[in-house]
């Protein structure tokens, strides 16, 4: 069986030759370590105002190639490590000067989020969402109006990007195409969570308007991902945190339920499977995931109390399960015996009858390639289906 058959068989709740293994957003530091690459010292370059301008212009003129390059590295690293499949994602951003920010430059994405740039201890550039630019309805309306031409461009870019990765790497690994952050995150993040919570009660029409808009763009992005030939698509929204959902599950249902159902319908209409990513403690949402039509879920964060065996017990084979290996200790500092024991436990808890793909629960720069390799080797060793 090759990697593709292995993944697709498991996703159909049948037993492949062995438990498949999938990589996530391998952090730049992790992929560099695998490929033996040294990061450019972006931190000191950005502290020079002239170079900062040049970097900004370069980022804005070559965004797509730059972004593609870093994900091509991720796939190279994932192939080298021995993953059967790997998450792939596209984001559309613009570098903007911001004297308040640490490096003098931030990224703005098309949805109205600000991403702070940082440099890790090895010198890798990192970016992370920090705040929104649309804290009022007026700001949101104005933003969307100003960016309207870019949404078509976004969809075009998504299709090109995923196609390029699938064409260049699809014979060696299965790219699992991610349509970008989901409707929940694209709704709250541009306004911030405190504002979002207020608007839910004070301006429900505004919240609905944003959700409708974001659903429309999201469905187009998802369709673009599927046009690239990707066979398994990944959706995602962090709907939960450490102790449970961000919002009452019924409120999630009322605000986002239709949107999620439309997402699943589209994927199924195109004869694809939809895996859904959410961090945090998601027990209270598992039945909703089934109801909304998701085919599988990815992450099941152990630090948030998620236990694979319990999830399997609750959902049976209504969902494919992907994930669960801890990134707070196990894949950072764990011993080989500990990694092997965790892999064996995950397989025992979830792999019977197919429907399980082994993976880490998340990624960050301390996730260690050696531990990932141990995880993959242990899956090869202990994950064989004998029947």
């Amino acid at each position, binding site marked *: 069986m090759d990697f593709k058959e292995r993944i697709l068989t498991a996703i159909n709740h049948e037993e492949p030759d062995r438990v498949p293994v999938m990589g996530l957003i391998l952090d730049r530091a992790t992929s560099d370590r695998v490929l033996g690459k040294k990061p450019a010292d972006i931190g000191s370059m950005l502290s020079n105002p002239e170079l900062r301008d040049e970097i900004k212009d370069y980022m804005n003129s070559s965004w797509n190639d730059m972004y593609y390059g870093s994900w091509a590295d991720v796939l190279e690293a994932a192939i080298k490590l021995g993953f059967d499949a790997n998450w792939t994602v596209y984001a559309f951003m613009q570098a903007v000067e911001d004297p308040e920010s*640490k490096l003098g430059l931030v990224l703005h994405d098309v949805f109205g989020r600000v991403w*702070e740039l*940082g440099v890790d201890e090895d010198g890798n550039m990192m970016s*992370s*969402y*920090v705040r929104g630019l649309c804290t009022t309805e007026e700001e949101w309306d104005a933003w969307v109006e100003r960016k309207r031409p870019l949404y078509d461009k976004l969809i075009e870019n998504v299709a090109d990007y995923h196609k390029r990765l699938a064409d260049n790497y699809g014979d060696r690994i299965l790219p699992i195409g991610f349509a970008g952050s989901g409707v929940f995150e694209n709704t709250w993040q541009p306004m911030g*969570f*405190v504002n*979002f*919570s*207020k608007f*839910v*009660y*004070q301006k429900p029409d505004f919240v609905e308007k944003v959700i409708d808009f974001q659903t429309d763009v999201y469905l187009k992005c998802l369709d673009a991902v599927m046009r690239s030939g990707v066979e398994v698509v990944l959706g995602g929204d962090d709907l939960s*945190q*450490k*102790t*449970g*959902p*961000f*919002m*009452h599950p019924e*409120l999630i249902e009322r605000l986002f339920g239709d949107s999620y159902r439309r997402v699943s319908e589209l994927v199924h209409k195109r004869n694809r499977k939809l895996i859904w990513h959410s961090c945090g403690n998601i027990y209270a949402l598992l039945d909703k995931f089934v109801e909304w039509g998701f085919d599988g879920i990815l992450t099941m964060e152990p*630090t*948030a109390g998620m236990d694979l065996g319990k999830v399997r017990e609750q959902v049976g084979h209504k969902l494919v399960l992907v994930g669960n290996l801890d*990134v*707070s*200790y196990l894949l*950072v500092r764990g011993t080989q015996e500990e990694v092997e024991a965790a892999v064996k436990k995950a397989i025992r808890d979830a792999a019977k009858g197919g429907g399980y793909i082994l993976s880490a629960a998340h990624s*960050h*720069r*301390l996730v260690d390639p050696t531990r990932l390799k141990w995880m993959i080797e242990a899956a090869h060793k202990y994950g064989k289906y004998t029947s």
Partner: protein
Amino acid sequence: MSGEILEQLKARLLDLDMDGAVELAELVAGGDVRIADAVNAISEGLEVVGQRFQRGEWFLTELVYAGEIARETMDLLSPLMETASSGPLGTVVVGTVAGDLHDLGKDIFINYARSAGFKLIDLGVDVPAEGFVSAVKEHHPLALGMSCLLTTTDSEIGKVIEGLKRQNVRDKVKVIIGGAALTEQFAENAGADAFAPDAVTGTDIIRGWGAS
């Protein structure tokens, strides 16, 4: 009459009715209900909010919005309070540690503790150890709160505590920590005074410190 207004004020908060709560607070501000009693009613309401959250009946959106309602009503009432009695319950300096940009937990803690009557100094996210230490020296707070969600940044907590010791202020401030990467055990090992699994427990802990 005044008892009825106080009950209603609490009920509006628990119904998440901002307009109703603000109207009643205005009535209190301009009328003959004791301001301190109204503030107590809001505090009692917030305690129920906290219990609902801890029992898993309410979620973050409700917690945040109830905090906002409490803040709006307190903003109307506290200026009138200060002439009559004491100010805030104490000062708390809070931030997310260096390298970590997660801010929701910190903001929700700040929001909730502020609405419970504390004065909060928000240092923001990605705060270097020296930033925490100098804020403690500047503001002389009752407590220093650190939020940390990442394994890559949990060593920052120890650095801050060491910094407080070096500057001889460790015994002048209580240290409370919270966030996904942390546990009770971690707090103990790092030399913090408390770990808060959520904003409500965190506020209860600092309330206890304020009282003692």
